[in-house]
């Protein structure tokens, strides 16, 4: 996302044929139709905010993984794959799979049986109103800003690829999303996320397929990348992580395993309400446990349509004279190097897809952006209505009033997002700050939630002050590395050879440890919560109900073991 700003400096890449426009228009038509169609089944707050808790494991699972599979994600990580090689895959595998399985098998029973409506709602049950207020306010604020950033990024990408007017893209995208989320709430958002998942694969899978045909298979691709870059480190996931200076990302395996694989990943996948909300819509405990396992299985396949195109670009993109085409960083785009890393996916799309398929690819990107916005806005309206408005401003309103507030906050949230999008359009650096803001909360929140679920002795004061200390320390470290001396990065990331990516991972690790440490110390200094009050909220104080699995093949743990086994095999294959 950060280098999307650089796209401003390039020229329009292509244009749409009438058949491409037809494909795009068909998508918009079905999206709006779905909004009107499900409105009739969206009358109560449970239906509006949690899709009536009637989604099957497959729908909740696909929606769970799709909510994270936005276009910024696709384009950004395809660019990262070009820049850093196959190391970018860590964000899809170790940076997602273990955490998703942990959510399904260990944490989901507590979220589900506590009947909470949201993650801040769980914090209220476990740690009281203080922790809920802090988590809800920060989440609502960040989510709505992210929606605006997403909106602006979509407009920018459409301007660069197709030459569309920025305001046109912002308003068309925003109005469409506002209509279908306002009408159908989470149900609408989930249906569209499932559609988007199918569309993304339909629109993007041809690129790696045709690319591998052109390159002559994986082995030849590796050889061509080594020849073009003069290095073999672009196609190894682990063997170059022994030292910060041995890999293009400037990270160490401890940062990947503990910072990314444990803290960042677990923080995002287990406590970010945007994704957890999808699983809470499951129709029973077994479906709620299976949904993240199904999501993890599909998540493992995503590098095929994201990372492989980035790697292929290193091998097959050529200048008209036959020399290797070098993509550059956002600040280095000029007449000699007209394309930046972030344009990898559109460049590869244009390389292989003519009229019709191009429209499908663009529709997939638009669907991804709109789903991202819908995910943010639906999560925002839920947290706003339940955890801010209903908890602090108007506690005794009717269910009908809360549904009205949900619809109203969807529209207002979208308007704030549009405002943010225009703000970002005038100061692109705001995007970096919004992303940094998000990183402040995720790691400490995971510390608070996981201690709350697994440790009976954690007290309300411990939870609140742990969360506050973790968040404050994360902000402090970010200020230190951003505005402090040059040595600040090496202190936080433990090496003079560390690069900014490593800073994010180690900052998350330290802020999580501080959160956990403060929670433990404060908890031991304060009066424990009687065990009777922890029933349904904490491991050891809660009899986990039978999830209804009959036979081995119905058991979520069985499928989780299959997924984690494939995960290990894949990591060994690309070691």
């Amino acid at each position, binding site marked *: 996302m950060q280098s999307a700003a650089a796209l401003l400096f390039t020229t329009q890449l292509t244009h749409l044929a009438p058949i491409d426009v037809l494909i795009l228009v*068909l998508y918009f038509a079905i999206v709006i139709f779905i909004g009107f169609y499900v409105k009739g089944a969206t009358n109560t707050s449970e239906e509006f905010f949690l899709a009536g808790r009637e*989604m099957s494991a497959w729908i909740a699972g696909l929606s769970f993984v799709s909510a994270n599979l936005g276009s910024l994600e696709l384009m950004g990580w395809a660019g990262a794959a070009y820049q850093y090689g196959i190391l970018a895959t860590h964000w899809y595998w170790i940076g997602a799979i273990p955490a998703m399985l942990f959510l399904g098998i260990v944490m989901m029973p507590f979220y589900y049986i506590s009947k909470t409506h949201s993650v801040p709602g769980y914090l209220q049950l476990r740690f009281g109103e203080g922790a809920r207020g802090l988590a809800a306010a920060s989440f609502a604020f960040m989510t709505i800003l992210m929606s605006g950033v997403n909106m602006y990024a979509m407009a920018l990408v459409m301007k660069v690829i197709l030459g569309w007017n920025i305001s046109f893209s912002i308003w068309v995208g925003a109005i469409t999303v506002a209509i279908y989320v306002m009408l159908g709430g989470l149900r609408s958002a989930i249906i569209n996320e499932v*559609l988007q998942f199918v569309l993304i694969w339909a629109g993007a899978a041809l690129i790696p397929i045709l690319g591998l045909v052109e390159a002559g298979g994986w082995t030849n691709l590796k050889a061509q990348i080594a020849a073009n870059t003069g290095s073999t480190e672009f196609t190894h996931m682990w063997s170059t992580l022994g030292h910060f200076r041995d890999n293009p990302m400037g990270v160490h395996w401890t940062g990947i395993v503990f910072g990314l694989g444990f803290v960042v990943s677990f923080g995002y996948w287990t406590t970010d309400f945007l994704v957890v909300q999808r699983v809470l819509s499951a129709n029973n405990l077994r479906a709620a446990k299976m949904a993240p396992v199904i999501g993890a299985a599909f998540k493992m396949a995503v590098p095929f349509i994201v990372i492989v195109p980035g790697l292929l670009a290193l091998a097959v993109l050529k200048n008209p004279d036959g020399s290797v085409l070098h993509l550059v960083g956002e600040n280095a785009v000029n007449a000699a190097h007209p394309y930046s890393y972030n344009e990898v996916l559109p460049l590869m799309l244009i390389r292989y897809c003519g009229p019709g398929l191009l429209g499908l690819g663009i529709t997939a990107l638009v669907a991804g952006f709109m789903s991202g916005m819908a995910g943010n806005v639906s999560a925002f309206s839920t947290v706003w209505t339940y955890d801010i408005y209903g908890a602090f401003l108007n506690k005794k309103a009717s269910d009908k009033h809360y549904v009205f507030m949900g619809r109203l906050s969807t529209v207002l949230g979208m308007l704030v997002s549009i405002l943010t999008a225009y703000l970002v359009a005038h100061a692109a650096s705001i995007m970096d700050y919004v992303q940094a803001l998000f990183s402040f909360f995720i790691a400490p929140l995971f510390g608070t939630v996981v201690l709350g679920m697994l440790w009976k002795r954690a007290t309300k004061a411990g939870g609140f002050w742990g969360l506050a200390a973790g968040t404050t320390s994360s902000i402090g470290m970010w200020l230190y590395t951003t505005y402090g001396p040059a040595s600040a990065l090496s202190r936080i990331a433990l090496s003079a050879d560390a690069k900014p990516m490593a800073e994010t991972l180690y900052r998350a690790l330290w802020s999580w440890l501080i959160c956990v440490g403060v929670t433990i110390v404060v908890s031991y200094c304060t009066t424990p919560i009687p065990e009777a009050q922890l029933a349904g909220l904490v491991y050891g104080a809660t009899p986990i109900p039978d999830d209804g699995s009959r036979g081995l093949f119905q058991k979520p743990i069985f499928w989780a073991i299959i997924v984690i086994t494939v995960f290990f095999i894949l990591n060994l294959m690309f070691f």
Partner: protein
Amino acid sequence: MAEGTGRGERLSIWFFVGMLTLVYGLVLAPYGAWEWIGNHEAPTVLNNLHPTFWWGSLMLIFGLFYTIKFRPGKV
């Protein structure tokens, strides 16, 4: 029950998935055939493999399967 769209609704979420891919297949496969037969291929890499026709056909089959399997009224 129509899965995913609400209790009492007739259209399943998978029906929407099938319909969208079916319609896209119906647009892409004939267009790809026209490109192939009439030598109107766009100047893309590997256009000799006729990806629009084959990909469109694949979407058509996928869409047809889901549309029929999850058609309204089928229990």
